[in-house]
Each structure stands twice: as C-alpha cells, then as structure tokens.
C-alpha cells in the first residue's frame, strides 16, 4: 500500500491547522509522527482515513483519491486506533473487538471472526478479559482493546493515535515491538502518533516531525532525531546519543520562553 499526501491543508472553521503537508509513504513500513501538542498530528491521520476532509490537496491510496473511496471500503483498507474510547454504553471486550470485523460482517458473528478476535486478544495478552465489560478495565487495558479492534480490521494501513500513552514502560515496549513485527509479517503500513521520542526512534523505519502545522523534518530516526530539531520543534534542550544504532534522547531542560 502506498499513501501519497499531496499538499493538504486543513482548518477547523477559520483556524488553520495543517498547511501544505506532502508525504509519500509506502508499506511495509513503520512510520511515527512526532510533534508537540496541537500541531495537527491527529488531524493529519484523520485526513488520511476520511474522518476529516482536507480543505486543499489530496490523499491518494495506491493511486486512488480517498475522496472517491466509500467509507465502507476505507474501513477494509485503513484501520484506526483512537486516542480514547467512548464508554457511555460499554460493550463487552469481545464485542468491542468484534466491531473491528464490522466492515466484513453480515448479521451474525462468524466463527472466523471469533477466531481472529481470539488470536488477537491472545497476541496482546488480554484474552482473559474477553467477557468483561469495557468500562471495568483500566486505561491501559482500554488501549489494548482498541488496538485489538484496529488489528482485527486486517487493514493494509493501520493508523494509531498515541496507542501506548496509558501503558507502563514494559507494555509500551511490548506493544511497539509487536507493531514493528506486524509491519513485516502482515506487510502493512503502520502510522503511529507518539509523544515518546525514544520509543519511536527505537522501532520506526521513518519519522515525520511536524512543526507549526507543516512537516519540519522527515526521514530515518537518525536523520530526524537530533538536538537542533528537538530544540526547534519541542523547545527542549537535549543530548542525543546513539544506542544500539538508534538515536536516544536525554532531556536536559526546557528552552526558556520569551519573557521567562
């Protein structure tokens, strides 16, 4: 699967968020989107899966403009794992994950769907939670359930909005490593928004760094993660060392704001 983003702009009403974003991403690859709060990371992935429509520019999936693809077909091509889940009327874990099979399903639940759900729950180590209500789980378990829902969609592109933000360090590593493995095994393009620069640097094939609604830097972790970029984009002083062939950031201090 190849995603070509051609000069997209997006604004919420009169507030511009994204400006002239252009990128060419081909799977299998594990891509991380980095950038400070409010820079438009989530907006960018919502423009890719048609939750939002860009005000200018196009997004192409394998040469097809997404504006011409039905949302039903999109659901088979692009999976989405949101940052948070609505649990006003919570389903059980198994039914929540089974919803990921919605684009394929008819009225009943097929054994094949159940097997896919079971395998995915096992892979994420949460099959023991299957019959529990979603609202009974912890924030970290919520994230794993939503991740399972995205995976059972069996998409060619998987978009994840901070999928590890509520996980402890052990599970952050486990989940990101598993995403990296899935990228190769299932031949898919994984695009993950992350605030953890070190985890992104450790596992990503490519990093897109956003700044002021535009792409500031794009490339391999070694090309993008450096002290100068972090100072400009995140306003932090840091030291970047190389660990196991990958950049690793040691944070030093926040860059003083004007007037500090």
């Amino acid at each position: 699967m190849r995603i070509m983003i051609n000069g997209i702009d997006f604004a919420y009403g009169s507030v511009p968020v994204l400006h002239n974003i252009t990128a060419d991403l081909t799977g299998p690859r594990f891509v991380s989107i980095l950038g400070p709060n409010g820079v438009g990371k989530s907006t960018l992935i919502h423009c890719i899966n048609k939750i939002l429509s860009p005000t200018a520019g196009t997004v192409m999936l394998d040469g097809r403009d997404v504006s011409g693809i039905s949302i039903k077909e999109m659901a088979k091509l692009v999976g989405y794992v949101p940052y948070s889940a609505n649990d006003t009327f919570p389903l059980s874990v198994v039914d929540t994950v089974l919803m990921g099979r919605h684009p394929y399903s008819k009225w009943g639940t097929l054994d094949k769907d159940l097997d896919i759900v079971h395998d995915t729950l096992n892979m994420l180590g949460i099959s023991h939670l299957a019959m529990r209500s979603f609202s009974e789980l912890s924030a970290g378990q919520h994230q794993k359930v939503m991740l399972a829902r995205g995976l059972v969609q069996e998409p060619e592109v998987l978009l994840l909005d901070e999928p590890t933000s509520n996980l402890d360090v052990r599970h952050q590593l486990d989940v990101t490593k598993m995403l990296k493995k899935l990228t190769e095994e299932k031949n898919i393009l994984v695009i993950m928004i992350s605030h953890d620069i070190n985890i992104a640097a450790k596992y990503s094939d490519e990093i897109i760094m956003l700044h002021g609604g535009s792409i500031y830097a794009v490339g391999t972790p070694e090309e993008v993660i450096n002290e100068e970029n972090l100072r400009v984009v995140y306003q932090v002083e840091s030291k970047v060392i190389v660990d196991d062939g990958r950049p690793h950031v040691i944070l030093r201090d926040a860059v003083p704001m004007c007037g500090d």
Partner: protein
Amino acid sequence: MSPLKHRPAPQPDTDEGFRAEYRSYIWRKVLFIAFLAAAMFILLGYSVTVSGRDMTFWDGIMAIADRIMGVTYDRAEEPVKFWNDYIVWNSTMPRVLGAVVCGAGLAVCGAAMQVVLNNPLAEPYTLGVSSGAVFGACLAIILGFSFGSIGTYGIIGNAFIFALVPCAVVIVLVGVMKGISPVTMILAGTAISYFFSGLTTLMMVRTDDDTLTSSFRWQIGSLADIGWNSIWVIFAGTAVCTAVLMMTTKYLNALALGDRSATSLGVDVNKVRYTILIVSSLMVAVILSFTGIIGFIGLLAPHMVRSILGADNRYVIPASMLLGPVILLFADTISRFLAEVDLPVGIVMMFVGSPIFLYILLGRRGRRVMYRCSDMPDRTAASRPATAHS
C-alpha cells in the same frame, strides 16, 4: 475409573473453547429475552381479567383462546362465559394491547435515542416531542383550532403534527450546521421544548377552569381511551418503526464506540443518526397523540435491560421491546385495580418507576455497568478473578 466415556470440555484458550464460551455468553442473553417474552404473555393473560368483574386467570385465558378458535357463547345459556368474552374482548383487550404496543414502542425508542444522543438521560421525549404534542392538543382543546377534523380526532391529529415540529427543527439544524454534537442536539431540543411549553402555558392561563382541567388531563398519559380503532393505528406505526430500529442495532453498537471510531469502521454516522431520530420521533408522535405523555418507561426499560444484559444493542433493543410492555402492563393493571380513584397509568408509572430506577442506579450492578464516576475508587470488577463474567 469411570466407565462412562466423556468428551473433555473445550479449553477457553483454544479457538474452539473461545467460540463455545462466546456462544454460551450469547445464549444467556437470548434466554433472558425468551424469559421476558414469556413474562409479557403471562402478564397479558392476567391483565385482561382485571376489569372489576370476578374473573380468574384461566377464565381470561379461555376467553382469549376460545375467541381465537372461533368458539362463541349464547348469552342466555352460558352467561358467565358470554360476559367474560364480552368484557375481555370489548373492554380490557384493546387497553392491554395498547399497553403492550405503547410500552414496546417507548422502550425501544428510549434505548435507541440514548445511544444516538450518547446520553443515558435521553428518552423518547428528549428532543421536545411531548411539548410539541401538548401544544398541538391544547390548540385544539382550548382554541378549537385543528388540522382536518374536529373533536377527538382533531386533538389526535394536532398532537401528532406538532409533536414532529421540535424534532424537525433539531434535525434541520443538524443538517444545516455541520458537526453539531449530540449534546448540542439535546440542548436545542430543550430550548424548543421551553418555547412550546411557554405557548401552551399562555393558552392555559387565559382559559376557563373546565377547559384548563381537560387540557391538563390530556397531558397525563392514559390508556383508558384506547379502543380497537386506535390500537390498529398505533400498532401499525409502532411495528414499522420498531422493525426499522431493529435493523439498525449493529450500527447503534458502532455509534456507541464514538463517531470517529464508527466512521473508521465504515458506518455513515450522520445517516444512521438521522434515520434513527426520524423513525423514533414518528413512532413516539403516533403513540403520544393517542395516549398523552407516558413518562419514564423509555428511560427505565432500557436501563434495566442494560444492567442485566450489558449494552450490546443487538440484545438491548429486542429485550427493551419486551420489558417495556411488561412494565407498562404492570402499571396499567395497578391503575385498573385502583379504578375507583381514577388513576391514569402515567401517574402509576411514575410511582412504580421511581423506586425501581433508583434501585438499579444505586445497586451494585448498575454502578458497575454504566454509571461509574470516572474518579470513583471502586474498581471492584477489575480486582475480581477473570473467570467471573459479568
């Protein structure tokens, strides 16, 4: 060593074991729905006998069965059976069927509205249907203005037409202004309700006492006036709308995950929301125009069902469709027991509903399943062993 051959039970960690566990989990829900259906029919059989006439449960069942089988009685030779048949089929049956149909419609509508508006407090009247209907009815009762015919049918017609006005305004607003949230829709409904209530109150304060009494009484939900003519209209409207809502249950589940998640699963959120709001409003308008405002059932039945079955709408909607009639039949039977003090079912419903609703809300299951405050320290379920299924 036992000589009996036995198959080993499927282990939950195998695909087969998982399927078996899921199936038994589904079967428990289906069983509960079957239980509700049985309860509804038993209560219906009993309820037709409550008429002031001395009749047993079996007298009622026989009167129903004999009429269905085509058996007739001579008034002179078998007066007891004749009058049982007469009372059941001419007096209580339309009212009992009214309770079944209205209870089903209001409960299903409440369940769907809560999900569509993403709010546990939503009910069939949330978007202002009732205030519109009351305004329409008062327009006919107080000012004598009605669309079409006059008298009772004028009131019914007015109530139906004006019931749809507030929903139409909300739906048009949603269509014109893109990206309106369910909360805004509820608030818009509330604003429109106040407007219609203001107009109604204006009419009521300027009329004489007798007209004031009759227009006030219209508002109190009652099944007493339902006869065979009206039951068919209510049944047709409710059956069609309920059938449509039944077909949307999977989409309701997607909507319950949040709009963005639903869209990413291939669900056209706006289309589903529009369809359900329009169909629900039509159904409530039909019911309301014949019965007045029967409150609480649209809130109570779905929440009771969710506290037992969980929130999967594939089962919540059909179970609500059966529990609604059970509750309304119960309330209406009580109201007929108390016939001498003339207590409309709308009032009984409030007395019956309040304690049950509070029990569910404050009971352990209710707190755990739905109404857990986000910072509540009680995560009892999370600390229980994984095998303890909810």
